[in-house]
C-alpha cells in the first residue's frame, strides 16, 4: 500500500518522535509512506478563524501535490486531519469550489481522500492483521486512551469513530496487550493552542484530564495528536506546581506503543525524546 504522507508542521518539529514512530510503524506494517513534496502548513489552527478561503486553499494546495503520489493521503495529526476533512466537505458546495479553484489556480479539484493513520490501521490493515504481527505483548500496562476533540468531532466532518464514546484507540491497545481504562475525560478538550495565549485555561483542563486518568488507574496516556501530547506532557510540571500534584504520567503516541508491540527498538520510536520519560514504566512492566 502506498500513501502520500502529510507530516504537518508539528511532526517536523515538536513532535519529531511522532514522525519517527509513524514511519517506523508504517514500514513494519508494509505501508509505504511518501512525503508530500513541497508541502505547506495546513492552516490549523489560525487560518480558519482568519479567513475561510485561506483555510480551504491551504489544504487544497497540499492535496494537489499529494495527488502525484497517491489518491489517498495519510495524516497523523488530529488538527491536520480536521482541516483536510473540512476542506473536503466544504468543496461539495459548487460556489466555494469555483472560488477556491480560482484562488490557487487549479483546473480540477484533486481527488485525494485524507485519512488518519488510525483509520487505515483499523479499516485497511485490520486489527487482526496487527495482532498477527505482534512480537511483544504490552503486558497489561494500564492505558488511558485520550481522543481529544478533532480526531472524532464534529461528527459530520470526522466520520471516523463515535464522537461521544470513541473506542478505536481502546480497541487497538487492547489487542497489543495493554488494558484500556474506562474514564469519562477521554474526549474532553485539552485546550489546544490556548497553551501559549491562555496557559491558565490549559493548565486547568489538562489537570482535570490527568487527574481523571490517574483516578481511573491509568499508568500512562496514549494520544493521536501532537498538540494533545504537548499539552498533556509538557505541562505536567506546571500543573504539579499550580495544583500541588505529582503527576508523572508518560504520554505516548499510539504509534509508539504499536511500535513497541511490533518489536521496534525504542530509539527508532523516538521514546528517548519524551519529557516525561516512559522508561521506568516500561522497565517495570518488562517491556523491552
Amino acid at each position: 500500500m502506498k500513501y502520500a504522507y502529510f507530516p504537518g508542521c508539528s511532526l517536523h518539529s515538536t513532535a519529531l518522535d511522532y514522525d519517527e514512530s509513524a514511519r517506523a510503524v508504517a514500514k513494519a506494517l508494509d505501508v509505504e509512506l511518501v512525503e508530500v513534496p513541497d508541502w505547506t502548513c495546513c492552516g490549523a489552527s489560525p487560518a480558519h478563524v482568519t479567513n475561510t478561503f485561506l483555510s480551504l486553499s491551504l489544504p487544497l494546495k497540499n492535496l494537489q501535490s499529494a495527488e502525484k503520489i497517491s489518491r489517498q493521503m495519510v495524516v497523523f495529526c488530529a488538527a491536520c486531519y480536521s482541516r483536510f476533512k473540512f476542506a473536503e466537505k466544504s468543496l461539495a458546495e459548487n460556489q466555494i469550489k469555483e472560488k477556491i479553484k480560482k484562488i490557487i489556480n487549479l483546473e480540477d479539484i484533486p481527488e485525494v481522500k485524507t485519512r488518519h493513520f488510525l483509520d487505515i490501521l483499523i479499516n485497511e490493515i485490520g486489527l487482526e492483521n496487527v495482532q498477527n504481527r505482534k512480537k511483544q505483548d504490552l503486558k497489561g500496562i494500564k492505558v488511558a486512551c485520550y481522543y481529544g476533540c478533532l480526531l472524532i468531532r464534529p461528527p459530520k466532518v470526522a466520520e471516523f469513530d463515535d464522537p461521544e464514546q470513541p473506542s478505536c484507540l481502546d480497541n487497538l491497545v487492547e489487542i497489543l496487550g495493554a488494558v484500556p481504562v474506562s474514564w469519562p475525560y477521554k474526549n474532553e478538550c485539552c485546550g489546544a493552542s490556548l497553551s501559549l495565549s491562555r496557559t491558565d485555561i490549559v493548565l486547568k483542563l489538562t489537570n482535570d484530564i490527568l487527574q481523571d486518568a490517574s483516578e481511573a488507574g491509568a499508568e500512562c496516556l496514549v494520544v493521536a495528536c501532537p498538540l494533545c501530547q504537548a499539552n498533556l506532557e509538557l505541562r505536567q510540571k506546571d500543573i504539579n506546581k499550580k495544583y500541588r500534584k505529582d503527576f508523572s504520567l508518560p504520554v505516548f503516541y499510539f504509534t509508539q506503543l504499536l511500535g513497541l508491540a511490533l518489536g521496534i527498538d525504542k530509539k527508532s520510536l523516538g521514546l528517548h525524546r519524551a519529557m516525561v520519560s516512559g522508561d521506568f514504566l516500561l522497565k517495570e512492566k518488562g517491556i523491552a
Partner: protein
Amino acid sequence: MLVVDQLPKTELQEIPFKTKIPRIGVFICHCGINIAGVVDVEKVASEFAKIPGVVHSIDYKYMCSNPGQELITTTIKEKKLNGVIVAACSPRMHETTFRNAALKAGLNPYRVEIANIREQCSWVHQNEKEKATEKAIQIIYSILEKVREDQTLEASHSDVEKKALVIGAGIAGIQAALDIAQAGYPVILVEKESCIGGHMTKLAETFPTLDCAACILTPRTVEVSQTPKIKLYTYSEIEEISGLVGDFRVKIRRKARSVIEERCTGCGICQEKCPKKNIPSEHEEGMGTRKAIYISFPQAVPNIPVIDRESCIFYKTGKCKVCQKFCEPEAIDFEQQDEIIEEKVGAIVVATGFKQLGKDLYGEYGYGKYKDVINSIQFERLQSASGPTLGEIRRPSDGKIPKIVVFIQCVGSRDRSKGIPYCSSICCMYTAKHSMLYKHKVHDGQAYVFYIDVRAAGKGYEEFWARAVEEEGAIYLRGRVSRLFEKDGKIVVRGSDTLSGTQIEIEADMVVLASAICAHPSAIELAKKLRIPYDQYGFFTEAHPKLRPVETTTMGLFLAGACQAPKDIPTTVAQASAAASKVLGLLSQEKLSHDPITAVIDDEICSGCGLCVEACFYGAREIDGIKQISTVKEVLCEGCGACTVACPNGATQLKNFTKEQILSMVDVML
C-alpha cells in the same frame, strides 16, 4: 368518495348537456374584499360576457353563500348551461359546494370547474391590482379551455363491509375499538404484544391529575375483552393489506404463542414453575425480570402467557417441558405454528404508537453504560406500585434511595444536530410529574430539572408545572447537559445554566433522561403495506394538518395516537374517538361512491412498458398478462395523475385532465 351525487336527481336531467355547442356560465366571486379588493371583478365579468360560448358572466359578493349558490342553480336552469366556471377560492375549499349547486340544477357536477383567483391571484398580488386583474382573466381563460372539453362523468358505487380493523391496542386503539363496537359494528383489534394496553400499562400516575394509570386503564382493557363485538388478536401482526375502502382484505399473522389460548385458564402455574429465570422483562423496561413463559404483568388482558422461544430451555436443548407437566388444562403446545388469518373489513384505524429514543444518539450521557442513568419509562416503573421496587424509588446500581435526582429534558427532542428537530410534546409535563412524585416518596430528596423551555399548553398543565416548582421544590435549571460520568458512586452531571450564565456540576445519585418520542421502527414497513404516507421521522401523515387530522390520504384509513405525532393521553383518546366516528360515518353508508376522475388507458397506443405500474402509489396499475398492456383498476385509482406523467407515449390519460385539455390550457396562458 364524493358526496355530490347522493343528492336527489332532479327532473331537469334531460337537458341536452352533451351538445357540442358550449353554453358556459362564468361566476366571479368577490369573496368580500378578498378578491374584489384587488381584482376588478366587474371588468373580469364583462370580459367573459363577450366570449363566444359563454352565455352568462356575472360577479357576486359571496358565491359560496346560500343566495350565491341559488344564483348558480337558477342560472343553469334558465340559461340551459352545460358548463360552469366559478372563479373564487381554491377548489379544496368549495369545489364540492359548487358541484352540489350544479347538481341541484341537474348539471353533471364534473362539468363545474373552479378558477382559483384568490390564493393564486388576489392574495399574492395585493399591490398590483391591474396586473392581478389581468392574471385573473388569464386563469379563467385557461379553465374555460378545460370546461369546453370536460366530459360527463358518473361516480361508481361499491358495497361497504360493515366491520372495522384497529391496528395496535394501546390506549388509542382500545378507545377507537370500544367506540366503534359500542355503536354496533364488529371490530378486529390486532396487537403485536402478548397483551393489550401499550405504553400506558407501564405508567405509574398520569399528569395533570395524578390519577393512577392502571386504575383508569384496566377498566378499558377488561371492557375490550368482554365486548362481544371486539375480536381481539394479541401477539399478532399485519402481514398484508389489499383492497380499498369498504373492502379491505387483511392477512393477520398470529405468531405462535406456544399456548393454546382457548384452553388456558390463566392460573399462572407455568410461569411459577418455569426454571428459566432472570430474563430482562420488557414490561419492566429491563428493570425487573421474567421467566421464559410469562404473563407481562398481573392485570394483563388477555391473562394468557406466551413462551419466549429465544430463552426457553426446551427450544434450546430439547429438554425441560416443566410448564407442560404442570399445566392442567393441557394448554401448552410446543409445536404451535404461526397462523395466517384472513379478514375482510370496511375501514381501518392505525394506532401503532411510538418508541422512546434508545441509547444510540447520546453517547455523552452514557445511557446503557451507567446503571443509574435511566430513561423516563424506566422511572415510571420505579414509581409503579407493581414495578420492580414495588413503588419505592431505588436506584438500579445498588438499590439505595437516591437523594439527588437530575432530570434531563429534551434528550433528542428539539436537537437538530441529532436529526430530531421536533418537540416530543409530553416530556415537560411528565418530568414535572416525576419530580413531584419523587418528592412525595423521598421527602428529603432534591430534584433538579434541566430544560430548554417548559411547554405546558394543555388544560391544567401550567398550574401543574408551577406546583412542581413552588410546592414540591423542584429546582429548574435552564440549559443543556454536556456530559454525564460516574465518579465515586455518583453520576456527575455537567451542564450550563443559561439564566445565570454559569457552568454547573451536580453530583447526582440518579439521572433520568426524557428521551425523545420516536416513530416505531416498524412504522415505515407498515406504512408501505397500508399505502399511507409518512414524514421524514416515520410518523404517519394526516390528510390535512388542521381540517382532516385523523384521515390519511388513502380513503378508509384513519390515524389515532402517537403513530401520527407525539401526543399525551387526553389528546390521544380524543383523536381515537374522532377516528372511530369517521369509521362509523363510513360504515353506516349503504353504498360508497367513487370519484370518477381516474386514469384511462388507450389500448391501441399502450406499449406495456410498465412505467405506470411503478409510478402508481395505490397499486391501481398492472400489466395484463395476455394483452401485455397496462390496465387500470378504477376502484383503487385515486386520480393523482402520476401515471400520466410517467407514460412516455400518452396512452394513459386522466379523465377530464387529458393531455389535450392541459395543453390547450397552457396555450391560452402563453
